[in-house]
């Protein structure tokens, strides 16, 4: 845990960074070596890493974190529309706005704990989702979603469909058609977009690691372990919880901004509670409370989503054509339930299996495997339990 000293952490961090930056090469053999998928690993990895600061450390299960992701996306697209296509203001603004939003929702929701807290966050997220579709249409453009449009040449009457980009205009940047997000002139698409997300992921990972090893992080663990004792120890848990909630909301906002950077379109469906459920799943799958787990969970889910959704009945027939026809057809009709459109079925099953058999997630699974190999050599105690 935090007893690892700063040097071990540094090595761990450098290895992680090296891995993330070389994912395009390392993951090419398993068919994941292209930017669209890899940037999803990074974005949802960030989302899950942030979620883990709340859920993994304090045990408070929020079912509304997708709302912060959505708010981040909207905020980023608005920056694109109003100010500039440069990604930095968009990202900064998105993180600030979602942080404020999380602060407000967290302040109210954290007045309760346990399942009541979960329901409160769920209620707030659903309210945001419904309002984004209805009353807030002037801000969200409802079902169509908020998009980057052409810069208005004349007087602006409709900000949803006419962009201004004040800063870009002032700097005399010419636009031909709808521009792509950029970083000081460098267009952020394709591999550039991935590397932007990767750098953000590495930064987010570093901050999460420092929080994990800090006194603050220890207090968060103490909240999960025994909040009652903490009260009688002279600690006021609520501001700690609110800080953790807000930080995790800012991570979600960052992830939302990056989604908007890679695809400048923000829609309300990102805020739905099933989307909140997905980040819970990622965190659990990898291992709640661990450092590496949430990123691992996010990457595994996005990878299999990509693979499984791409398979259809034809490709199954192609693979299984060596079998006798009746067997092939039967097998295909069973398997087809789990692939393509049926990917969510696989996801649901995976979810159940993990919660039932491996509540500590993949990281715990690895540790158990390592434990199996090392047990014969030395007695395992709590001390040398690996906690990545």
């Amino acid at each position, binding site marked *: 845990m*935090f007893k690892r000293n700063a040097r071990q952490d540094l090595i761990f961090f450098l290895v992680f960074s090296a891995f993330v930056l070389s994912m395009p090469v390392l993951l090419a053999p398993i068919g994941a070596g292209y930017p669209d998928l890899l940037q999803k690993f990074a974005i949802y990895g960030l989302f899950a890493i942030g979620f883990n600061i709340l859920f993994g450390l304090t045990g408070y299960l929020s079912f509304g974190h997708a709302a912060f992701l959505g708010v981040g996306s909207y905020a980023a697209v608005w920056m694109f529309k109003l100010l500039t296509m440069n990604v930095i203001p968009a990202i900064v603004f998105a993180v600030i706005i979602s942080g404020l939003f999380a602060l407000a929702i967290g302040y109210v929701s954290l007045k309760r704990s346990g399942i009541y807290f979960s329901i409160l966050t769920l209620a707030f997220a659903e309210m945001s989702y419904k309002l984004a579709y209805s009353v807030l249409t002037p801000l969200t453009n409802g079902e169509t979603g908020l998009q980057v449009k052409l810069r208005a040449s004349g007087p602006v009457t409709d900000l949803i469909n006419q962009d201004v980009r004040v800063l870009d205009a002032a700097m005399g940047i010419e636009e031909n058609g709808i521009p792509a997000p950029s970083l000081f002139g460098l267009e952020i698409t394709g591999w550039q977009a991935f590397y932007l997300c990767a750098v953000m992921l590495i930064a987010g990972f570093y901050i999460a690691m420092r929080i994990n090893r800090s006194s603050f992080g220890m207090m968060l663990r103490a909240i999960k372990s025994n909040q009652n004792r903490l009260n009688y120890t002279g600690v006021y848990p609520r501001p700690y919880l609110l800080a953790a909630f807000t930080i995790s909301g800012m991570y979600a906002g960052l992830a939302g901004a990056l989604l908007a950077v890679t695809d400048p379109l923000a829609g309300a469906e990102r805020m739905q509670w099933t989307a909140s459920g997905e980040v819970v799943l990622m965190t659990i799958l990898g291992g709640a409370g661990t450092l590496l787990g949430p990123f691992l969970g996010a990457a595994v889910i996005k990878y299999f989503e990509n693979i499984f959704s791409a398979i259809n009945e034809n490709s199954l027939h192609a693979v299984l054509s060596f079998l006798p026809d009746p067997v092939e057809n039967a097998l295909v009709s069973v398997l087809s339930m789990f692939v393509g459109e049926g990917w969510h079925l696989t996801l649901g099953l995976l979810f159940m299996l993990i919660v039932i058999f491996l509540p500590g997630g993949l990281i715990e699974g690895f540790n158990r495997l390592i434990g199996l190999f090392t047990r014969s050599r030395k007695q395992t105690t709590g001390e040398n339990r690996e906690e990545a």
Partner: protein
Amino acid sequence: MAAILQITDVNKSFGGLRALWDVNLTVEEGTVHAIIGPNGAGKSTLLNCLVGRLKPDTGSVTFEGRPIIGLPPHRINQLGIARVFQTPEIFEDLTLLDNVLIPAMAKEDGAFRLNAWQRVTRRRALIEEAEHILEDVGLADQRHRIAAALSRGDKRRLELAMCLIQKPKLLLLDEPTAGMSRADTNNTIELLKKIGEKGITKIIIEHDMHVVFSLAHRISVLARGTFIADGTPDEIKGDPKVQEAYLGGAHL
């Protein structure tokens, strides 16, 4: 000697049941004050009123001259009151060292401090102090174990260490030896005597008279929600009212 804790006319009832009835008590600084009494006398209720878990209906409690009624538990702790619970309240999923470090950090940082960038491992002084305290209670060799793995007796000692590291002015002990073997009880008595030398005022709730008479400078007897006797151990031994309360006279 000055009074560190002053309880005046405290009343508390639950529904129709009156748990505390005009309770008055003065605890002198630096003493070990035992509160004894039959089951259901209101001892735990009284402790709960002192640490902010319960709020008395009427009456006042002052600690070092400051009224503490209505303060939340963490504020009361920050004033210098620590409590050992009847069933050990510890951080079960954390290591022993963390268990002791957390109260130490609470003492140093106050009720809230956003030190998210400061590595725990950098707080050498606190860690050293925590290791000392663990040594004092005889748990130093287990400091990297997860607390849940401890025996019940060890959990109590850990909880005691968690309170001691805060150097409280007043330590409340709720049946610190309940369910312990004779040997463990004697160890705990020795331990409590040792910390007694540090001048911490203690209030002990205890059924075991052996423990009470080994430690207490002063004893107050609580029966049916009110104090019926108060004095030195020798005075209490000879008090017929106490014998009546204990021998069931109250119920006959």
